């Protein structure tokens, strides 16, 4: 039995989600809470499998799993190395905690009869992302990207306000355009090489980087994925999508979906585009670093002017995705490790922040920053968690936000991209400004008469506990950062060392 799980672990991480998504509505016919347990068990199982995969590839060589026993260039291959098993663990952990959180929050935000469908679509959403992470076939990546996006549109549309439908529709149009760009890019790569397997593509593209076909392919894929990642000029779908979706979906999406698109770009940049070598005189990492810097600054500056807490957090997410890009584009071991650490750290921080925002919404049905005045006295525990997370976002030492910024700046200094250092420091300052505004409202202002419309007296235990776990981990991994740092440094060595330096 154990043998079965260990040999088939790569494919099981996805199969459990597909089975869970099918079983959740069936169980929902009997009892709504059964579909909740179905989602809980599925995500827990996938987290156990991902952690098993992470430890197995950390200690041994990368795993290759052939679907149906077909050899790689012809069949679909799943390939697990440290980079993707690390992100697999992050995604499955965030999705697991979000399910626990959802037990309390979705009762007040989603109609009772939609709960089984919600869990089913949620499992498809996470399962699609696991598929993107684990597969080594570029067309399979496109299919999983569309699975997770389609599930995402449905989840956003389940929000409480009627504008949720419009937010979902805008995301649908832009997301489909992005995915279609990705498809065109795959078509051009296939035209040049005649293969879809990433390892095979990397070998066959050697010496073809000067052709227009490959350049066009790279341009289409990068723009398409940046649309999915919500990098600055292409971010218009994200703030509405995060603001008007149910709290649990804002939390889960903020922690997972844009990170997975970032992983896709990182994987393609390093394995097939050969960012290390550079091609035909184009400084690829320079372009990405400039775009990422603009994203970081623009996201932070727009976040300052927001009046809604969830929208502010959404714009902050846009800025933070820039850190991941900037770190991984520098082709430096420490910067890459910093960018990878930021995937974990930002997933924890932003998920927890959206969870706290969901808690405010649960109690007062409002997330306007002005309505949060004096909340420090009415909800001391939630406000204290918000304060810790804000400090972590700014990058105060002893929190996780500090670790990733430290490594990115270290890598920037080593590789000579000095422009990155002031950008990151300035962005920390801007982060302090917009979180400072909320913290000021929470703790240093008296509550106004207008915001006393309390909907629920007590926040459910499930919501508090899942948020508290994340806040605890924010501090724990900020103090004892050995484990994630070692894993990401080793992942960086594997990825960057795979190809010759420039």
């Amino acid at each position, binding site marked *: 039995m154990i043998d079965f799980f260990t040999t088939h672990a790569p494919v099981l991480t996805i199969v459990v989600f597909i089975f869970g998504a099918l079983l959740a509505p069936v169980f929902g016919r009997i009892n709504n809470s059964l579909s909740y347990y179905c989602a809980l068990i599925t995500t827990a199982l996938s987290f156990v499998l991902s952690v098993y995969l992470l430890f197995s590839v950390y200690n041994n060589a990368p795993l290759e799993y052939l679907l149906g026993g077909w050899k790689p260039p012809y069949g679909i291959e799943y390939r697990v190395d440290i980079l993707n098993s690390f992100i697999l663990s992050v995604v499955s952990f965030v999705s697991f905690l979000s399910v626990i959180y959802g037990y309390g929050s979705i009762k007040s935000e989603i109609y009772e009869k939609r709960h089984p469908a919600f869990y089913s679509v949620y499992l498809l959403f996470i399962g699609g992302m696991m598929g993107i992470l684990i597969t080594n076939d570029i*067309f399979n990546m*496109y*299919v999983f990207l*569309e699975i997770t996006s*389609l599930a995402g*549109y*449905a989840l956003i*549309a389940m*929000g*409480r*306000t*009627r*504008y*949720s*439908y*419009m937010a*979902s*529709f805008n995301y*649908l*149009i832009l997301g*489909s*355009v992005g*995915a*279609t760009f990705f*498809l*065109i890019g795959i*078509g051009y790569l*296939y*035209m040049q090489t*005649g293969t879809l397997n990433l390892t095979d593509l990397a070998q066959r593209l050697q010496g073809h980087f000067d052709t227009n076909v490959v350049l066009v392919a790279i341009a289409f894929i990068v723009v398409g994925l940046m649309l999915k990642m919500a990098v600055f000029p292409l971010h218009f779908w994200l703030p509405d999508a995060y603001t008007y979706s149910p709290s649990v979906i804002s939390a889960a999406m903020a922690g997972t979906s844009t990170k997975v698109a970032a992983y896709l770009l990182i994987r393609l940049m390093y394995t097939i585009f050969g960012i290390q070598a550079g091609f035909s005189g184009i400084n690829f990492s320079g372009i990405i670093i400039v775009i990422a810097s603009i994203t970081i600054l623009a996201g932070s500056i727009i976040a300052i002017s927001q009046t809604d807490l969830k929208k502010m957090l959404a714009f902050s997410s846009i800025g933070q995705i820039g850190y991941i890009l900037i770190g991984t584009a520098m082709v430096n071991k420490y910067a890459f490790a910093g960018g990878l650490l930021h995937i974990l750290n930002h997933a924890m921080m932003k998920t927890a922040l959206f969870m706290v925002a969901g808690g405010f919404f649960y109690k007062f049905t409002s997330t306007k920053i002005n309505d949060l005045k004096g909340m420090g006295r009415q909800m001391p525990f939630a406000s204290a968690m918000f304060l810790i997370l804000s400090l972590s976002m700014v990058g105060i030492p002893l929190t996780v936000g500090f670790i990733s910024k430290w490594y990115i700046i270290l890598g920037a200094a080593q590789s000579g991209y000095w422009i990155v250092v002031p950008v990151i420091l300035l962005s920390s300052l801007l982060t302090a400004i917009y979180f400072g505004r909320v913290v000021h409202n929470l703790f240093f202002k008296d509550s106004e008469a207008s915001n006393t419309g309390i909907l629920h007296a007590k926040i459910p235990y499930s919501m508090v506990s899942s948020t508290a776990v994340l806040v605890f981990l924010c501090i724990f991994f900020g103090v004892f950062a050995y484990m994630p740092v070692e894993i990401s440094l080793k992942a960086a060595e594997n990825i960057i060392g795979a190809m010759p330096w420039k």
Partner: protein
Amino acid sequence: MIEFIADKYNFWIAIVLMMIGFYAIIAKHNLVKKVIGLNIFQTSVFLFYISISKVNGGTAPIIWHPEGHAEVVYDNPLPHVLILTAIVVSVSVTAVALGIIVKLYKNYGSIEDDEIKLIEHNEPELDSK
């Protein structure tokens, strides 16, 4: 110049269709028209894939001579299979989009995105139906 255009006519068709679709997505306010634009946009990519699978002098990828004595050139069947998947994806995206448009019409009584934004601006924060 004429030859250059004529030789690559499959790319030109894909580009023209893609730009028509893209224009509809960007410029039209009617949501159904946006979805139609999206479909045209995706179809251009499908045609592009099908056209690159053509091999000069090739025929349909069916084994014509099982004994294997005649030399037959086949077209590449793989892009056709890929596009079969992409068409399924495109149809499901269209289905979800139309479902959302029905819900928007029930809630706002309009499917023009500028009117919906105006209604939302004037009377926000109503629970959805």
